[in-house]
């Protein structure tokens, strides 16, 4: 007997996600068992098994640590947009370009 890891996809656009493990004689038997143990209640649209020995895990978790502040890679690195937009609007007004925004847009259409 070998150990197999079971992966399933709930909807067609989901990634394969680990749902459990089981013992089976071979891959074919593992697929049958996975169907019975994990997917007998419409839990997904697709599943797969892989021999646990063939699954290689990250050996060094420090690889996931952040060495420096890399907020610029994430949404939180960009903030204060309300103030920045207001500053740009004020600048446009100061340049005498405030009239440019006085044109119909889908938003003004919805408001009327």
């Amino acid at each position, binding site marked *: 007997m070998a150990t197999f890891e079971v992966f399933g996809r709930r909807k067609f656009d989901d990634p394969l996600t680990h749902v459990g493990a089981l013992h089976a004689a071979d891959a074919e038997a593992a697929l049958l068992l996975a169907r019975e143990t994990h997917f007998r209640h419409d839990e997904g649209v697709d599943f797969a098994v892989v021999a646990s020995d063939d699954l290689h895990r990250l050996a060094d978790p420090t690889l996931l640590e952040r060495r420096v502040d890399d907020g610029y890679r994430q949404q939180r690195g960009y903030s204060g947009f309300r103030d920045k937009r207001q500053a740009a*609007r004020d600048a*446009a007004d100061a340049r005498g370009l405030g009239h440019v*925004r006085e044109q119909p*847009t*889908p*938003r*003004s*259409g919805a408001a009327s």
Partner: protein
Amino acid sequence: MQDTATDPVREAEFLAHLDAGGKVESGDWMPDTYRRMNIRFIEMHANSEIMGALPEREWIARAPSLRRKRSLAAKVQDEVGHAHLIYRVAETLGKPRTEMYEDLIAGRGKFHNVFHYPTYTWGDVACIGFLVDGAAIVTQQALLGTSYAPYVRVMKRVVAEESLHYRHGEDILLALASGTDEQFEMLQEAVNRWWTPIMHFFGTDVPREEDPSIRWGIKPRTNEESRQEWLSQYVPKLWDVGIELPDPALRYDVEAATWRYTEPDWDELAELVKGDPGPTTVSRLEARQLLHRHHAWVHEIITGDRVPTAA
């Protein structure tokens, strides 16, 4: 080997499956036309991610601050990452990745019109980051409804990363818009340069029933629907900060709930993507070829293969 024979009965069943909103997995039977059109579309998308990283890469060394330099470098890395994810999807349809790379560097591979243009100032970086990327986000969001399931799964991840790029672009644009008169002018001039390429980006207004990409479940939305969506999202943001657009006919028709604009010169687009490549296309492809040659040793070490370097 998959059965790709053209079988009119199976093809009719396949189209009915698509019409009912059905999805297609890589191992499923599919008509040749569907496979061919998807490869062409997805390969062009992947090529565009690679070629789109190049104009921004040109500005990493010239970015105005360390913060901008790092965010631009991170964004270029994201775009190249998208290219790899998307090339992988095209591979599941049967075209080897090496063949796609070779076609691209030899100038046979197609990529989006917007990456054929030069960049002159930091204002161009703002336009690429906000307006061009914005156009890409509009079309990529529509692709979440495409019929080829492996493509949908990859696009979910790509679209999530694009929302960061949107912030990055808006941040640069707002900094220029609220800066000195010189910075504002720099932005206005760049917007003038990018207007036509962006109008071209969405393609001609092909009616839904005449667009083969829609018939075959590749594009869920028409070109004009995507263009209107972009105009609705981005034009008001530009007007809001005093940026004007270089089309005097541009206006939102409230009655018809439609943007009116001057039809761009479509011959110019045809010339750009099909005719003689312009100087920027040539220099960008040369940059791509150079990188390919310079990095060949890395490929060799990692894969143990010889990398064909002849362009």
